[in-house]
């Protein structure tokens, strides 16, 4: 018998907010253990939750990017279970009225295009982290991650292969990063995925026994886990090797095997109920349209625009749309300097060089695009040399430069048009280095470059290279 695979994914994404969901603690990743903790997020009695509006902003943004309906009245509920990393012994989440429902993500695989339906997106708080210390054989709790805001994106069981699952996750990641909802870093746990999987005879409309694998944190592990589970389910159905039961399983990526964690019978009853301390969040038209206005063009729309009317190569366009930050700086720069090709070059080559040196990713580019545009313009007008422009660019990474021309003037980066000043420097250089002059006259082109370099250094790079070269040759010829 032929079987088909039915997969639904639950994806947790940490939101890119400065502070936690119900208190003002920092939500930043990577702090010292228990540095980002207050009485609220460590579960002390008497603190009341105050909803971080930014979380709702980003929840809505995610929903709009994934074609969801936004619930204009959305509520928070409590989910009770005991675990030492959950200081209140309940997680505040959305059970009865999630912020987004009925969405869609369009994917492209080797079998062609497909739509994966989104059941819902809900907002919730993350749990803390248990750290086991083997030396003292104790387990310690780090509350930094407690109450860091998350959204959980629940798909319908529309996915039928590992390839589709990966295409869906990659598309989801692109869209959410592009809308600045999250940095979606698998390796830092800001994107995590639960895989719900079952198989059934091809064409059947009855779902098979479902197993769930929790907290998958890489695409390759997800691919391997799906393939393993499909094989296990098929074997069980065809050969009767084991009885399939509805259960939660743990995927061990090192061993390439999944293990039973708990069955439906032993699963917890989470006793959901509305949190009486959080009033329903009402999203009015003004709020809704404010968020709607912040939505970015989709990456493929930008790509089309870049290769079409703006005339960039496909390579350049791909480089730029790989990150929203690059696109933002690029578009701002073009609007000032007018040259898409130049702006793309400056970003893809020069900016990336600086970022690489600082061990930063493209997403972290936060220079002012307008300033970059001014700089490119100054170069194209021969007012600043390319070498000095790179110095100014490096300075932009250290702090904003609002008026680039004024900055260039202040630091002596403006190309001199004063030919008499250039002539004086050239005369001095010729007088100081008769050997190079003789060599050049004897036909050694390289000797001219040596003189040129010395003059340019004297002029601090602020000479039009063409003009300098002409004056240099003219002066040598006079001898």
């Amino acid at each position, binding site marked *: 018998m032929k079987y088909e695979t039915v997969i639904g994914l639950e994806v947790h994404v940490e939101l890119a907010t400065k502070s936690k969901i119900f208190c003002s603690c920092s939500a930043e990743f990577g702090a010292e253990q228990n540095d980002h903790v207050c*009485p609220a997020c460590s579960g002390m009695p008497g603190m009341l939750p*105050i909803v971080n509006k930014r979380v709702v902003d980003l929840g809505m943004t995610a929903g709009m990017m994934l074609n969801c309906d936004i619930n204009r009245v959305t509520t928070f509920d409590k989910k009770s279970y005991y675990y*030492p990393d959950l200081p209140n012994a309940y997680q505040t989440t959305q059970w009865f009225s999630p912020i987004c429902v009925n969405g869609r993500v369009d994917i492209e695989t080797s079998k062609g295009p497909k739509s994966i339906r989104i059941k819902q997106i809900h907002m919730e708080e993350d749990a803390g982290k248990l750290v086991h210390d083997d030396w003292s054989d104790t387990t310690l709790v780090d509350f930094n991650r407690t109450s860091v805001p998350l959204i959980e994106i629940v798909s319908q069981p529309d996915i039928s292969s590992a390839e589709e699952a990966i295409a869906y996750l990659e598309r989801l990641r692109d869209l959410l990063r592009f809308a600045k909802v999250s940095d979606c870093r698998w390796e830092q746990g800001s994107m995590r995925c639960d895989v719900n999987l079952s198989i059934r005879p091809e064409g059947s409309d009855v779902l098979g026994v479902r197993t769930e694998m929790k907290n998958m944190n890489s695409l390759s592990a997800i691919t391997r886990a799906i393939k393993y589970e499909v094989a296990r389910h098929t074997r069980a159905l065809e050969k009767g090797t084991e009885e399939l039961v509805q259960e939660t399983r743990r995927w061990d990526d090192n061993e390439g095997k999944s293990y039973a964690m708990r069955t439906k019978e032993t699963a917890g009853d989470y006793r959901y109920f509305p949190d009486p301390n959080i009033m329903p969040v009402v999203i009015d038209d003004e709020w809704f349209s404010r968020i709607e206005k912040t939505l970015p063009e989709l990456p493929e729309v930008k790509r089309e625009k870049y290769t079409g009317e703006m005339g960039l190569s496909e390579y350049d366009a791909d480089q730029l749309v790989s990150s929203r930050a690059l696109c933002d700086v690029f578009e701002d720069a073009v609007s000032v300097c007018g040259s898409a090709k130049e702006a793309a070059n400056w970003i893809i080559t020069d900016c990336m060089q600086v970022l690489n040196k600082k061990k930063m990713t493209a997403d972290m580019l936060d220079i002012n695009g307008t300033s970059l545009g001014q700089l490119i313009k100054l170069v194209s007008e021969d007012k600043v040399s390319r070498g000095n422009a790179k110095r100014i660019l490096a300075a932009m990474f250290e702090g904003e430069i609002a008026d680039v021309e004024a900055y260039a003037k202040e630091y002596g980066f403006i190309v001199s048009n004063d030919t008499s000043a250039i002539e004086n420097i050239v005369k001095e250089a010729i007088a100081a280095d008769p050997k190079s002059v003789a060599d050049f006259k004897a036909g050694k082109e390289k000797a001219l470059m040596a003189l040129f370099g010395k003059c340019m250094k004297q002029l601090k790079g602020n000479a039009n290279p063409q003009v300098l070269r002409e004056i240099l040759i003219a002066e040598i010829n006079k001898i």
Partner: protein
Amino acid sequence: MKVYITKSEATGKNIVVDDMILTTDMPTTAGSKMLDGYMSLFEAQAVTALKENGYTICGKANTGEFNLDLLGETSHFGPCEENGVLKGAAAQTVKMGDAMAAVTLEVNGSSARAAALAGLVMMKPTYGTVSRFGTIPAACSGETVCVTAADVDTVKEVLTALKGHDDKDGTSLPQEKCVLGQAMPAKKVAVAKSLLTADADTLAKVEAVKAKLIANGVEVVEIEAEQLLLAKSAWNILMSAELCNNVSKYDGVKYGYRTPNYTNIDELYTNSRTEAFGYLTKSTVLFGSETLSEANYFKVYDKAQRIRRVISEYLTAVFAEYDAILAPVCSKTEYTVEETAANKYMAYEESTYTAPSMITGIPVVVTGGVQLMGAPLSDAALLAMAETL
């Protein structure tokens, strides 16, 4: 007789707060072994507001565990009693003149009962007009910070200091709704016939107040008010569900009591809670857990929420016609330690009278041993009415 923990300093404007209200210079225990010696890192907004208005917190009054009980009989530190008669520690402190007023967290009617039995004046203001920030959570959807004193003026004075919008409490009402304004004199008061189930002495108190109202030119009319009887079960369902969830954070991991008897995390949880919680808290947790279970949520918890709305709608209709509802606060005029030891669910039975206002968040004034319930935000009118009695 265990009354309260006193601080050394005391001034002319002494306020006693009960042990559900967090202070940073004295422990806050909620009357529970679980929080014995617990020192909070922050104080309640109520405490801050009192201090800012020149009051001194002179001590912490003993409470029943999480204020669920009848009159403080379930406190881990022993009940406040006199010759076997239960008093209610906060009210008794005021009665003895050690504090001008008591500020307590009303959860299931113990503050109202204590005031009624001691012949004091008490007001539970409209839900959301006094911040609950820094009160130990028990039943958040109804619990309210309230004031008890010897006379209406003092209650009014202290409430004025407490009332106000607080950004730290998401259920706090806008400032303009929190202010005690001017009130029109009452014209019409209803007597809730369904609640006239108390003993003769108590009913005589109702009659006395009724007579005074009539003498003041107020029209007094008896109404059936059978809907109010629904409140007892419904409030106890909601209260239990919320309490169950609210005390789940006391797990022996972070602070509070931790059992010495454990070898794994499950034993740590189970034994810490088994050894530290008292009988009423445990049974409330079990009941609350059951009402929230997947099997019962819609049958029990959700139904109780619907009943809450039915009662609110009924009260809206009543208050469209009447300025207040007059009713007893408890079924008799004295309760003993012995009685509550024999019947552990007396608080449940007696909540018949207090549950209607707890479940709807309406304001209540207790005076002359009876209560006057009013429409939401009619706090000033209720106080004005109490002043004439």
